[in-house]
C-alpha cells in the first residue's frame, strides 16, 4: 500500500509530524518500507502483513493512527444520490460466497475527466490510469478498501448472478488474457455468460471505455474463502483479489458505492437508479476477555480503564461485566477472532517497547538429540584435522548425479529454481566436486574439504559426512608435508573412527564413481556405511578433473561412543618380534592381521605393518610384508619360550590360510 501523507490526513483531526507518522506506523505493525519527500508531501510505502487487509485503505490506516494518538477519525458522509433512473435489474446471489452485493446503474451525462487529485492518489498507489470511470472505482477503493467494479450496462443483461459456474468455462479477462476456469471460481454472470471473475477481475465482454454511457457499478463483499488462491491459480494478483483474500469490511459496501456515486455526479453528472441490494445479516464478532487473562499474558498489570479506553479508540464496543469485558469487534477488523488477538491490540497500542520484560525462570530438561551432538563432534574432528568445512545447496543437477553414476533414486523437485538444481542430492559428493572445480579454477592447489548434511533418496533421507582431498604436486613446498594419496585421506578417516571408538573394516569393492582398484567400502560388522577412494579415471577424464580422493559415510549409522572405564596399562615388560612373509599380493593386509591376531593369543597387543614390498627379487604374483608384533601380559613378564610358541603358531597358521612363507 502506497499513498501520500496528505491523503491520509483528510481523515485525521489533528496534525502529526513526518517523523512521528513514520515511526508510529511501523510501531503499529504497519511497517514503513520506504518513504520519500515530494513537493510539500510525503510518499509512504507500507509493507503490510496479510492479517491487516483493513489497512489496504487510507481510512483503515487513519483509524490506527487516530487510536494511538487519541485523535478523532474524520469520516466524510455521503448521501444517496437522487434516484431518478428507472432501470430494471435483478440480482441473485450465492450468499455462502458473497455476504452482500450492491449494484447501481448510473447514466453518465457528459464526458468526464479524471481530476488531478485522483490522478495523484492513483499514481502514489502505483495504479495505472485507465479511464475516468475506472479511475473513480480505484480511487474509492484506495480510500475505503472496498474494491468496486464498473460494467458497461449496455453490454450486460438484466439479470445478475453471483454464482459458481456449473462447468469449466473459457473467458477473456480485462487484461486481455484468456483463461479456462474451474467450478471453484466465483463468477458474476448475466443470463448468457460470465461477465466477471468475482473479486478478481472483470471480463472483456463487459468492459467500460471512453464511449460508455451507462454503467452498472458493483460494490460487493465476497467471502475470502471463495476468492483465496483463485487469482494465484491464474498466475496473478489484482488489487481487488488482494483485498478480498484478506477480508473486506462487511459494512462498507453502501458507503463506498455512495462515495463513488458522488464522484460520478461531480465529474460526469448523472442519473442514478436505485441501489439493487442482496445481503445477509452478519453478526458482529464478540469476544469475552478478563483482566486476569490480559495481565497474565502480558506479564504486567494494566488498569482496566486504560484497556477500555484504547479498545474503544480502536472502535470496539466494550461492555463491562463482573469478571470480564464483553467486546464487540468492529466490522473492518476481519482479523480479530480470539482473545489473543485482543492481547495483541492492547500491546500494539500501548507499544511493544513500552511493555516490561521479565526474566524467565524455567528449567526444562530432556536429553539432547544425539544426532546434533554427532554432527558437532564430526565437524570438530575434521576441522582439527585441517579440513575446511563447506555448505552446499541440498539440490543438485540430475545430469551431474548421472555422470557420477551415484544414484538413480534421487527425488525430483516439482518446481526447481533452475535445471541445475532439479533433484535433492543423493550424496554430498557432487557438491564437493563443484567446490573443487570452483576453487581449483581460482588457483587453489590444496584441498581438504568436508561437509555434513542430509542426503535424500526416494525411500529415505540420512545425515551424511563426506570429504575431499587433493594436492597439486607441482606446487609442493620445501617441506613436502602435504600429501594426498588414498592413504592420506584414509588416515584422517581412521582418526575420526578412532575418536569415536569405532573399528570399521575396509573392503575392496567399488562404487561407480570411484577407481575400482583404489577404493574401499567401509563396513561396520556387516553393514556398509560408506566408501572411500580415488575418483574414477573415466569420470576424471569426462569432467576434466585431476586425481581426487573422496570419502562419504552415513553418520546416522554411527553411534556415539559409550563411556568405558579406563584400562590400567600393563606394568610388565613386553616382547616384540618382526616377521616377514611372502604371500600372494591379492591378500589384503587387514585379513592377514586378523589371522595373525587369531593365532597370537590373548597377550598379543598389537600388529603393525612396517614394510610392504613388491618388485625385484620377488615373484610377480607375490608381495613381501613385514609385521611387527607386540606381546604383553597384564599378569607377569612373558617368557621367550611362550612368545616363541605363539610365533610358531602364527607362522603355521599363515602358511595354512594364506600359503604364506616366512622370508629368511
Amino acid at each position: 500500500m502506497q499513498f501520500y501523507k496528505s491523503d491520509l490526513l483528510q481523515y485525521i483531526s489533528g496534525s502529526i509530524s513526518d517523523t512521528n507518522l513514520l515511526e508510529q506506523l511501523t510501531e503499529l505493525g504497519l511497517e514503513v518500507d520506504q518513504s520519500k519527500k515530494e513537493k510539500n508531501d510525503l510518499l509512504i510505502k507500507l509493507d503490510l502483513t496479510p492479517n491487516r487487509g483493513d489497512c489496504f485503505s487510507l481510512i483503515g490506516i487513519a483509524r490506527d493512527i487516530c487510536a494511538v494518538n487519541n485523535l478523532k477519525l474524520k469520516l466524510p458522509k455521503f448521501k444517496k444520490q437522487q434516484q431518478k433512473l428507472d432501470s430494471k435489474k435483478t440480482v441473485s446471489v450465492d450468499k455462502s460466497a458473497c455476504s452482500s452485493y450492491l449494484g447501481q446503474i448510473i447514466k453518465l451525462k457528459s464526458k468526464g475527466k479524471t481530476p488531478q487529485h485522483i490522478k495523484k492518489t492513483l499514481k502514489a498507489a502505483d495504479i495505472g490510469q485507465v479511464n475516468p470511470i475506472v479511475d473513480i472505482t480505484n480511487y474509492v477503493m484506495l480510500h475505503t478498501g472496498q474494491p468496486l467494479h464498473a460494467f458497461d450496462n449496455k453490454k450486460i443483461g438484466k439479470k445478475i448472478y453471483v454464482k459458481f459456474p456449473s462447468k469449466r468455462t473459457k473467458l477473456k479477462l480485462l487484461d486481455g488474457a484468456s483463461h479456462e476456469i474451474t467450478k471453484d471460481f466465483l463468477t458474476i454472470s448475466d443470463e448468457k455468460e460470465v461477465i466477471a471473475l468475482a473479486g478478481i477481475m472483470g471480463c472483456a465482454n463487459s468492459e467500460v471505455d471512453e464511449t460508455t454511457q451507462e454503467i452498472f457499478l458493483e460494490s460487493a463483499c465476497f467471502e475470502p474463502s471463495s476468492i483465496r488462491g483463485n487469482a494465484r491459480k491464474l498466475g496473478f494478483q489484482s488489487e481487488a483479489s488482494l483485498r478480498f483474500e484478506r477480508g473486506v469490511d462487511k459494512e462498507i459496501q453502501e458507503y463506498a458505492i455512495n462515495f463513488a456515486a458522488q464522484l460520478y455526479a461531480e465529474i460526469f453528472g448523472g442519473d442514478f437508479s436505485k441501489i439493487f441490494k442482496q445481503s445477509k445479516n452478519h453478526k458482529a464478532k464478540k469476544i469475552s476477555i478478563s483482566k486476569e487473562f490480559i495481565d497474565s499474558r502480558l506479564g504486567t498489570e494494566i488498569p482496566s480503564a486504560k484497556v477500555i479506553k484504547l479498545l474503544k479508540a480502536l472502535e470496539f464496543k466494550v461492555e463491562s461485566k463482573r469478571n470480564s469485558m464483553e467486546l464487540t469487534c468492529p466490522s473492518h477488523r476481519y482479523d480479530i477472532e480470539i482473545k489473543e488477538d485482543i492481547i495483541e491490540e492492547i500491546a500494539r497500542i500501548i507499544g511493544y517497547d513500552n511493555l516490561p520484560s521479565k526474566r524467565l525462570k524455567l528449567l526444562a530438561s530432556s536429553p539432547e538429540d544425539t544426532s546434533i551432538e554427532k554432527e558437532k563432534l564430526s565437524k570438530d574432528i575434521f576441522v582439527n584435522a585441517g579440513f575446511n568445512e563447506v555448505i552446499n545447496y541440498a539440490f543438485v543437477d540430475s545430469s551431474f548425479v548421472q555422470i557420477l553414476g551415484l544414484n538413480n533414486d534421487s527425488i525430483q523437485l516439482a518446481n526447481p529454481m533452475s535445471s541445475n538444481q532439479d533433484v535433492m542430492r543423493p550424496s554430498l559428493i557432487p557438491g564437493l566436486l563443484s567446490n573443487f572445480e570452483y576453487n581449483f579454477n581460482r588457483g587453489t592447489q590444496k584441498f581438504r574439504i568436508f561437509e555434513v548434511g542430509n542426503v535424500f533418496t526416494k525411500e529415505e533421507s540420512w545425515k551424511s559426512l563426506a570429504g575431499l582431498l587433493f594436492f597439486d604436486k607441482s606446487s609442493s613446498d620445501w617441506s613436502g608435508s602435504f600429501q594426498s594419496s588414498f592413504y592420506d585421506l584414509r588416515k584422517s578417516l581412521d582418526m575420526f573412527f578412532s575418536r569415536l571408538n569405532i573399528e570399521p573394516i575396509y573392503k575392496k569393492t567399488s562404487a561407480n564413481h570411484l577407481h575400482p582398484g583404489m577404493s574401499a567400502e567401509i563396513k561396520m560388522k556387516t553393514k556398509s556405511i560408506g566408501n572411500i577412494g580415488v575418483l574414477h579415471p573415466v569420470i576424471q577424464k569426462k569432467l576434466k578433473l585431476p586425481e581426487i580422493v573422496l570419502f562419504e559415510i552415513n553418520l546416522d549409522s554411527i553411534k556415539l561412543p559409550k563411556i568405558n572405564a579406563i584400562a590400567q596399562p600393563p606394568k610388565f615388560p613386553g616382547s616384540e618380534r618382526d616377521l616377514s612373509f611372502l604371500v600372494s599380493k591379492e591378500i589384503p593386509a587387514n585379513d592377514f592381521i586378523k589371522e595373525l591376531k587369531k593365532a597370537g593369543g590373548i597377550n598379543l597387543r598389537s600388529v603393525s605393518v612396517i614394510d610392504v614390498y613388491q618388485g625385484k627379487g620377488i615373484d610377480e604374483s607375490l608381495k613381501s610384508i613385514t609385521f611387527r608384533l607386540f606381546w604383553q601380559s597384564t599378569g607377569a613378564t612373558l617368557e621367550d619360550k611362550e612368545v616363541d610358541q605363539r610365533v610358531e603358531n602364527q607362522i603355521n597358521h599363515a602358511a595354512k590360510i594364506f600359503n604364506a612363507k616366512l622370508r629368511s
Partner: protein
Amino acid sequence: MDLAQEKKSFLSKFKEADSQDSLNSLKIQYLGKKGILSSLMSQLSNAPAEKKPELGKSINKFKSLIEESISSSLEKIEQSALNEQLSNEAIDVTLPLSPDVGSYHPISLIANEISNYFKNKGYVLREGPEIESEYFNFSALNIPENHPARDMHDTFYFDNGNLLRTHTSPVQIRSMELESPPLKILCPGKVFRCDSDQTHTPMFHQVEGLVVDKDINFAHLKNEILEFIESFFKDNPKVRFRPSYFPFTEPSVEVDIKGENGWLEIMGCGMVHPNVLKNVGLSPEVYSGFAFGMGIERMTMLRYQISDIRMLFENDLRFVIKG
C-alpha cells in the same frame, strides 16, 4: 724409577696429547694395572720406613695430577666436539611452512554460537526432517491452504505433495507432539524457499526457539530476546519490538536493532498461537508459550560484514574464516 723424572716425562707427554685416544692411552700408561703409577707404588714398599709417608704422599699427589689433567682435558675435547656437532646440526628456523588449518563454515560458527548460548540457558537442541508434509509445515502451524500467509513462503514441492520445509517451525510441532511441557527447545536447521537475490538464497538456515509451560508471558519473551541480543551484538545496540504477523504466533513481533543506516530486522517472535497449542493437544487455557526464530545467514552477514548472501554458498576457500 725417579718420581721427579716420571712427573716431568708425564707432563711433556700430556702436553702433546690432543685427542681423546691419546689421552685415554696416556691414562692407561700411567693409571692402568701395569702402569707407571702401580710400579711407583710397588717401589714404595722397598723404601726406608722413615721416607715412606713422604714418598707415599708425593705418589698420591702425582696420581691426582694425572687424573685431573686427563679428565679436564677430556672434558674440554668433548665439549668442543659437542659444540661442533650442535653447530653442524643447526637448521633455518625461519623457513616458511603452510600448516593445514581447518575451519568451520561461517554459518556453522554462528549457528554454534547461538546454539551454545541457548543451551547454556537450558534449551535442548532438536532437529527435524528437511522434507516435510504440508501438515507440519503449514496446517499444524495455523496456516490453512490458500491463506495469503502462504504467499510469504515460496515453497518447493515434490510430486507426492510433500515439500521442503520453509521454516524450522515444523520441529516445534514435532517436539510438542512427543514431549509434554515444560518445554524449552532450540531447533537449528536448513530451510528452503524459491527465491534468489542479494539477500535471498533458495536454501538458508534458521534457528528457532520454543518455550511452553504454564504462565509464560510476553514479558518473558521480551527479556529472553533482549538478553540474547546483548550477548550476540557486543556493542549493545538499541532494540525495537514491533507488531507483525505470523499465523503461528499471537501477538506476533518483529525485532529490529539500530544499525549505522537505520533499523535492521533481525528476528521474528511471538506468543504461541492457541490454535497451534490445540493442534498438538495442549489446552491454551492451561498452557502458553513463546517462540522466536532468526535467519543464521543474516546474523552471519551482520557479524562478518558480508553484503551478498550468495557468497556464503560459493564456498570460496580464499575466504575461509579462522576461528
